[in-house]
């Protein structure tokens, strides 16, 4: 029987790894992810989870340990945040090139300096082009379920996957969580059966020298696998509904049917967007929400279809790509490019370093969207002393 518990996003992630029967876990503590490491240590120590926990000396080594264990055929899991994910970067590439379906949870936190432990998605989005599947959880339930969903697809395409959740807003917020029945999860997620695994009976070499005659094709195959992951995510998300009672999809629409204005958002702040959309609807504004659940592979075709013919689109970016725009907006614009009925995309950079993004903040963004003509590259929301708008050169804002 499924259990109903009141748990934080972090603890839900640990439950996700447990339900997925992760066999080798290696992780390193960092605020605000630490509770995941702690709970997984307890679960393995008590025998509730039959796994080997390797308490390494860094995140670089955590990912390296996962890479080794995965190459030997084990299902592996790790969790990190901000600085830790950045430190892992080299080994994140290794997991992709070695085609290892490692799954990790990243509790998105602002990058230092200055030191900040608060919500900001620049950390995870900086790993955009590595070749990991990327999902963004909005709720405690998804912090658990997306891990299971990820393994299902990752092990089919032999690519790793990361699940993002926002610092504190999700990691430390308790919500009711349905902990699925283990046998139902087992039915959904069979044992990991790699195509190749390190085995002295079959003494192959993995990851060695490749010359210019082969490297290109190896990369091509990664690109192709990620493409397949797009369809498999949809299928596995539907099957999740059939087997485990909750249907998931790479994009989620809310009140979109007649919407002239669409707000695109990812992660925990989406819950406030939902409320803002309801409030604005009550005032007669035809607005809807499009939530980006999967960022890699990016649901290009579905996004083009859903956004075609809308009046205007606001993208909320709790991240930034200096020299260009917010990262989600850049992706949405690129997905829409060339579509004859594509709406103009307005990029709103919000909530960096955990600055609150309230329902009122989103309503202000919506007002701005309706009245503004020039989308510019990026519009900043809530910088001290400045109205919503593009950067003002030389304006002193630190006070």
């Amino acid at each position, binding site marked *: 029987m499924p259990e109903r518990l009141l748990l934080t996003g972090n603890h839900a992630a640990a439950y996700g790894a447990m339900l997925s029967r992760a066999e080798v876990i290696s992780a390193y503590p960092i605020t605000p992810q630490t509770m995941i490491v702690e709970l997984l240590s307890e679960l393995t120590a008590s025998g509730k989870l039959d796994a080997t926990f390797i308490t390494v000396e860094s995140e670089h080594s955590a990912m390296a340990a996962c890479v*080794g264990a995965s190459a030997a055929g084990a299902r592996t899991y790790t969790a990190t945040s901000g600085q830790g994910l950045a430190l892992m970067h080299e080994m994140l590439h290794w997991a992709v090139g070695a085609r290892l379906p490692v799954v990790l949870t990243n509790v998105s936190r602002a990058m230092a300096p200055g030191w900040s432990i608060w919500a900001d998605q620049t950390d995870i989005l900086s790993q955009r082009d590595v070749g990991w599947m990327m999902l963004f959880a909005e709720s405690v339930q998804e912090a658990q379920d997306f891990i299971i969903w990820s393994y299902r697809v990752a092990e089919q395409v032999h690519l790793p996957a990361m699940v993002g959740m926002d610092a504190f807003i999700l990691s430390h917020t308790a919500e009711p969580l349905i902990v699925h029945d283990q046998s139902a999860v087992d039915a959904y997620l069979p044992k990991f059966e790699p195509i190749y695994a390190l085995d*002295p009976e079959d003494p192959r070499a993995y*990851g060695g020298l490749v010359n210019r005659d082969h490297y290109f094709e190896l990369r091509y195959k990664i690109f192709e696998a990620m493409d397949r992951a797009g369809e498999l995510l949809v299928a596995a998300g539907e099957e999740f509904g059939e087997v485990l009672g909750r249907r998931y999809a790479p994009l989620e629409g809310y009140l979109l049917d007649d919407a002239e204005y669409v707000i695109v958002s990812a992660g925990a702040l989406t819950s406030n967007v939902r409320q803002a959309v309801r409030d604005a609807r009550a005032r007669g504004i035809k607005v809807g929400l499009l939530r980006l659940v999967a960022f890699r592979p990016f649901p290009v075709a579905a996004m083009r279809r859903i956004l075609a013919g809308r009046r205007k689109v606001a993208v909320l970016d709790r991240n930034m790509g200096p020299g260009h725009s917010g990262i989600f907006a850049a992706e949405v614009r690129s997905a829409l490019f060339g579509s004859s009925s594509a709406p103009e995309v307005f990029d709103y950079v919000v909530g960096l370093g955990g600055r609150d993004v309230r329902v009122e903040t989103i309503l202000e963004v919506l007002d701005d969207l309706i009245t503004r003509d020039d989308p510019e590259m990026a519009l900043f929301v809530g910088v001290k002393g400045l109205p919503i708008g593009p950067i003002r050169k030389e304006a002193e804002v630190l006070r």
Partner: protein
Amino acid sequence: MRWAVPEAEFVDPGTLGCQGCGGALSMRLVLKEVGDDAIAVLPACCWSIIDGPWPTHALRIPVFHTAFETAAVVAAGIKAAKRRQGRDTTVIAWAGDGGTFDIGLQALSGAAERNEDILYVCYDNEAYMNTGIQRSSATPRGTWTTTTPDENPEPRIKKDIMGIIAAHRIPYAATATAAYPEDLARKVRTAMEARGGMRFLHILAACPPGWKVAADQAIEVMRRAVRSRVFPLYEVRDGRHYTITYRPEPVLPIEEYLGLQGRFAPFGADPALVAAARREVDDRWAWLEEQHERSLQPATT
């Protein structure tokens, strides 16, 4: 006399090693004792090349190539998975001096501190050879490399990696070289018997191009490193109990080790360097003899 080294071969001919490569020879000798129920983890180093390009490779055991600084921890990850599969496969982390003394030291220390059940072998050619002979912290004082040119040779003494490893109190650590194959083979055997915890072998491995010696002098130069006491052969059990396994008699003057190698040209220009090197070698040997003596005493605790 029968050679006390197994005849079995686990390295196929046709590797990409240079002529006289001490690293290639060391692998061949080590695997003879380890056998074929083993997996090798190779970080970036000359051995990333030596094993050969895809789709062929020289070792008759599986090889997992990994990033420069991760040999120890990737080996630990593989071992964890294998153990869960009910297999006691020997997992060998095989790294150069750069991957051990420098960039890989953190992950190595982590694995040693956790006493991971792996066999870590550092083949030490005393510089970054893969990238074309740059200094490492294993490069001896006075040595030429491309980043310590003749006018400004390596200014610092070689890092004491065995001391660092011993401080982690792992069950077994030893120095060895292919010029003394029976000593090396016995140490691999002892390391295999000490399975269950971390084993560390520090193997001096000549690099003819990097050391500027003729390929046919590679074994001779390793032998002279031992005979001059520049590279003492010893074992450390539990980080505390030292045994010198070979005492050269008579001791070869250090000049006969240095003089054979072009990389030590700066010594020719600076007699003070030779005197300093001799002092360091003597000090180190005296310290090792003390440890050896102490280790013979009955335990006092």
